[in-house]
């Protein structure tokens, strides 16, 4: 083998197999030129070892970490069932549900049903004392008739007609 072939092998000595190294070793015993290359390679190995010993470090590791983390944004979670729900649809559903709650809260059931009052004044008593229950009910009805309720009037055809008559009367004057 010629010297130029050995040159590459000397520079890559650490990459060679044992048998390849033996061939190089044998050549080096007799070749002064290649021995010079070997010395240069040895010198470089020592210098490389020194270079390895000094690892460049950032001036401020904490600050650099902070800068890196500042640009790290958590991606949206990949949950298939959550993705399936349309946000707009969800918003309308929630709005409908809350409206239903408000209506249920203000809803007053018609008072002329006896069982409603059963609950109001105690179930056991009323079942046994019907006259007392009726008395409360009649008084309730009387007091209700005394106050004018627009809602009740709208439900009543005669009441609406009488308001219409009154309105016509005042307009014609």
């Amino acid at each position, binding site marked *: 083998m010629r010297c130029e072939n050995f*040159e*590459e092998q000397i*520079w*890559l000595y650490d*990459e060679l197999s044992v048998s390849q190294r033996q061939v190089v070793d044998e050549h080096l015993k007799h070749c002064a030129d290649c021995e010079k290359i070997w010395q*240069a*390679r040895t*010198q*470089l190995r020592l*210098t*490389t070892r*020194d*270079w*390895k*010993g*000094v*690892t*460049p*470090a*950032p*001036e401020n*590791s904490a600050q*650099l*970490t902070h*800068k*890196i*983390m500042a*640009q*790290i944004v*958590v*991606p949206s*979670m990949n949950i298939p069932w959550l993705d399936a729900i349309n946000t707009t649809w969800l918003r309308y559903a929630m709005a409908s549900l809350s409206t239903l709650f408000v209506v249920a809260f203000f809803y007053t059931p018609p008072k002329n049903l006896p069982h409603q009052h059963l609950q109001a004044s105690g179930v056991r008593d009323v079942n046994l004392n019907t006259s007392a229950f009726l008395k409360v009910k009649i008084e309730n009805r009387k007091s209700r008739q005394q106050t004018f309720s627009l809602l009740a009037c709208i439900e009543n055809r005669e009441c609406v007609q009488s308001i219409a008559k009154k309105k016509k009367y005042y307009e014609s004057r």
Partner: protein
Amino acid sequence: MIKPIPTEILKRAIEGDRRAFQKIVEGHLSFAYAVAYRMLGNRADAEDITQDAFFRLWKNIPKYKVEIKLSTWLYKIVTNLCLDFLKSTRYRERKFMHDVEAANSVQSSLTPEDIMNGEELQNQLLQASEVLSPLQKAVFILRDLEALTVEETCEILSIDADGVKSNLFHARKKISATLKLIYETHEPK
């Protein structure tokens, strides 16, 4: 040496856990920066590349496969960002300006004793590796300074073993010649 990241932390980071990812950043910051600095020879550029590399790692971490070491993957990102940067106009312009300044400046009065100190050693390495092509520089840093295996170097640079060896041969030879020049310049008179 880089401490391996516990599987649990790695798993959480892959699932998008920011805190787990911060642990990865803290564990790998030094080596990512060191590679970038040795490749580019400039603090600001090395910090920019390090930042960019971790951002890319975060964006791609859901695609991470356990067959490849996380550190190898990060080396790959950092090294490729550096190679792109070394080919960029921005770098070439800056290098040109730097060379002009160096040529105009008075020869440094360094003594061989100075060369032994840490900062000077780093400057010496940067100066010596200036003569290398970006790929030769990358191979030299990964193989001789980071002590990675030929297989890892192949994976990081997407080249075969012959490519690694050929680039390493030229890199070592050129650096040795440059070092000889540096030593001759600083020889005591």
